[in-house]
């Protein structure tokens, strides 16, 4: 057990301040990028028109979108350096790698939801759904940065790229943005706010902490690694906290 796990006897520090900060920057950045992008993507609809008006018109919208695109690039560099050059970050990345057991776990989880098993399958530090969100947002962000740069520097890009590739880039940027928007604002927000037992919200993104009970329920393998066979009920009574 590490020092951070001993800091509060009732809760486990699951994420560091650095990791929480990355999440906050990503949350704000993608929200602004989605709203400013949607204004252009859906410019013919009432939602697009309202967003465009709120964002100060076409020029201001573009400036805001590009400013936060740069923030996303800096965040990507920050995250890359974190997972490659720090021991903890690298360990997190290794835990996040998809494995064949994730697919089996996901199928078993669906079986649990459908009433075929009495207990949910045991997951490690990250559940298959968390991995899917991480890699979906990560790969999606990289694709958005790449296609976004082509659209931003379109004059230079069109000097070297064929017209059809430029058209494809435009389509991919718009729809990939929409997929990312649905992934984060639909599924991710559903999981942390509305999935069973999580309403009104999980608080780990605020404190980085999780209760033993919750860890035992949702990340059983990680719990067993930290506390062995000792059940959460055998510890002194604790406050309810949430998981990521």
């Amino acid at each position, binding site marked *: 057990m590490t020092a951070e796990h001993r800091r509060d006897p009732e809760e486990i520090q699951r994420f560091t301040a650095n990791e929480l900060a990355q999440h906050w920057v990503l949350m704000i950045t993608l929200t602004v990028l989605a709203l400013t992008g949607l204004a252009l993507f859906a410019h013919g609809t009432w939602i697009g028109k309202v967003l465009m008006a709120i964002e100060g018109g076409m020029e201001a919208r573009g400036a805001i979108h590009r400013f936060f695109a740069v923030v996303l690039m800096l965040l990507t560099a920050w995250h890359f350096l974190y997972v490659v050059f720090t021991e903890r970050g690298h360990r997190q990345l290794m835990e996040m790698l998809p494995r064949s057991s994730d697919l089996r776990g996901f199928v078993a989880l669906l079986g649990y939801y459908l009433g075929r098993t009495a207990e949910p399958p045991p997951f490690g530090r990250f559940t298959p759904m968390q991995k899917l969100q991480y890699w979906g947002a990560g790969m999606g962000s990289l694709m958005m940065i790449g296609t976004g740069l082509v659209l931003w520097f379109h004059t230079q890009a069109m000097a070297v790229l064929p017209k059809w590739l430029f058209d494809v880039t435009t389509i*991919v940027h718009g729809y990939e943005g929409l997929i990312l928007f649905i992934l984060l604002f639909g599924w991710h927000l559903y999981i942390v706010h509305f999935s069973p037992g999580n309403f009104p919200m999980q608080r780990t993104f605020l404190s980085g902490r999780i209760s033993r009970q919750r860890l035992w329920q949702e990340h059983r393998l990680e719990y067993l690694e930290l506390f062995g066979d000792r059940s959460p009920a055998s510890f002194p009574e604790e406050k309810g906290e949430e998981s990521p």
Partner: protein
Amino acid sequence: MRIPVTALLQLATTESSIPPAGGPVRTVVRIVLGVFIAMLASYILIEQIGSWRRRRTDRDR
């Protein structure tokens, strides 16, 4: 090699000379998007139904 930027830009922006590309791409992307939304919706539905059934079973017990 010197890139004929002006000529390329003119070619690329002349709609009559080059039809807009991306029609099939747009279709494929829309299908991917539809499948993605259907999968997420199914997952949410299964989770909610499972949760509701467990709550009902626990209440009846």
